[in-house]
C-alpha cells in the first residue's frame, strides 16, 4: 500500500514538473529572441582566430566557461584517484588471452590515436576540437587497459598527475598572462590568437583524456589487499 502511494506521489510530482516545463518551453518558443546570437557570431568570427563557430565560442568568446570546466574535471579526477585501489594503469587481472580483442587492439589503437590528432586539428575550421579528441584518446587508453597490454612505458603516478595538471595550468597561465599584460583576463593577444588557441586545445585534449582515463582506472576495487598509494608498505 505504501509503495503504491509513494509511486502515485512520484508520478504526480513528475507530471507537474513536466507540465510546468512544457508550458515554460511553449511560452519561450512563442516570443522572439531579443538578440540574434548567430548573427552576432557571424560578425565577430573573423576576429576570433578560428573559422568554426563552435570552436570560436568554446575557446575564445566563452573561454571562461571552458577554463572552469577543465577545473571541474581536474577536481573530479583528484577525487577519483584519491579513492583508487589499483595503483597501476595496467591491471594484471585483466590480461587477456582473447585473440580477437588482441587483434582489435593492434588495429584500433593506432587508428584511434591518429583520429584523435585529426579531430584536434580539424576543430579550427570544421566540426571537431579538443573535447572530441580527448574523448577518443581516453577511449584508446581504456581499450589498452581492457586488453591488459603491458604498459611499462607509462609510469602511472607521474603521467596521470602531469596530465591532470597540465591542461588547467596552461590555460590559467595564458589567462593570467593577458591580465598581467594589461588587457582583460583571458583576452588573447591579437597576433597569436590562432597558435594560442591550438596550443590550449592540445593541452586540453591531453588533460581531458587523462582525467577520464584516471576515473576509469580508479573505479574497480580489487579484492586482493593492495598497498594504497603513498603507503610505505
Amino acid at each position: 500500500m505504501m509503495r503504491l502511494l509513494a509511486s502515485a506521489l512520484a508520478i504526480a510530482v513528475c507530471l507537474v514538473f513536466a507540465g510546468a516545463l512544457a508550458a515554460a518551453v511553449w511560452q519561450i518558443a512563442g516570443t522572439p529572441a531579443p538578440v540574434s546570437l548567430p548573427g552576432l557570431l557571424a560578425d565577430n568570427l573573423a576576429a576570433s582566430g578560428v573559422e568554426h563557430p563552435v570552436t570560436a565560442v568554446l575557446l575564445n568568446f566563452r573561454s571562461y566557461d571552458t577554463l572552469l570546466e577543465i577545473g571541474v574535471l581536474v577536481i573530479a579526477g583528484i577525487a577519483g584517484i584519491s579513492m583508487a585501489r589499483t595503483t597501476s594503469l595496467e591491471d594484471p587481472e585483466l590480461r587477456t588471452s582473447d585473440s580477437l580483442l588482441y587483434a582489435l587492439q593492434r588495429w584500433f589503437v593506432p587508428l584511434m590515436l591518429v583520429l584523435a590528432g585529426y579531430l584536434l586539428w580539424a576543430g579550427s575550421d570544421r566540426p571537431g576540437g579538443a573535447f572530441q579528441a580527448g574523448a577518443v584518446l581516453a577511449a584508446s587508453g581504456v581499450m589498452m587497459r581492457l586488453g591488459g597490454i603491458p604498459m611499462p612505458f607509462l609510469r602511472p603516478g607521474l603521467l596521470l598527475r602531469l596530465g591532470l595538471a597540465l591542461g588547467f595550468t596552461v590555460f590559467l597561465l595564458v589567462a593570467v598572462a593577458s591580465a598581467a599584460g594589461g588587457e582583460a583576463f583571458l583576452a588573447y593577444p591579437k597576433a597569436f590568437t590562432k597558435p594560442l588557441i591550438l596550443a590550449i586545445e592540445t593541452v586540453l585534449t591531453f588533460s581531458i583524456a587523462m582525467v577520464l582515463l584516471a576515473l576509469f582506472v580508479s573505479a574497480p576495487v580489487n579484492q586482493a589487499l593492495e598497498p594504497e598509494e603513498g603507503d610505505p608498505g
Partner: protein
Amino acid sequence: MTPSLLYAFAGVLLCSLGLFGFIRLAHLLRKLLAFNLMGSGVFLVMVGLAQRDGEPDPVPQALVLTGIVVAIAATALAVVLIRRYYHLSGQATLAGPAATQHGTAKPVVRAEDRS
C-alpha cells in the same frame, strides 16, 4: 511548431522520466542511469529551444558540449563512489540496515584513516 521544438518537448519528457526513475528506483546504478537521462533531456531542451527557427546556434551547442564532458566526469566519479560504497557496505542501495561483511577480512576502519 518546428521539428526542433519537437525535440525540445522530447527533452521535457525525458527529463521528467529521468526524474521519476531517480526518485523511485532503489539501486544506485539505476539512479545514475536515470540521472543521465535527465541530463540528456536538459541538453535537448537547451538546443531545441534555442534553434526553434531552424537556424543552428553555436552558443548553446558549445554549452551543451561542455555539459556532456562535465556529465561524464560526474558519472565516472559517481561510479567510483558507488563501487567503493558497495565494497564497504555490501549493498548497492542506500536504505536498510548495513549488511554484515561477508567474506572480507579487512576491518571496517580503513588504512587511509591513518594519517
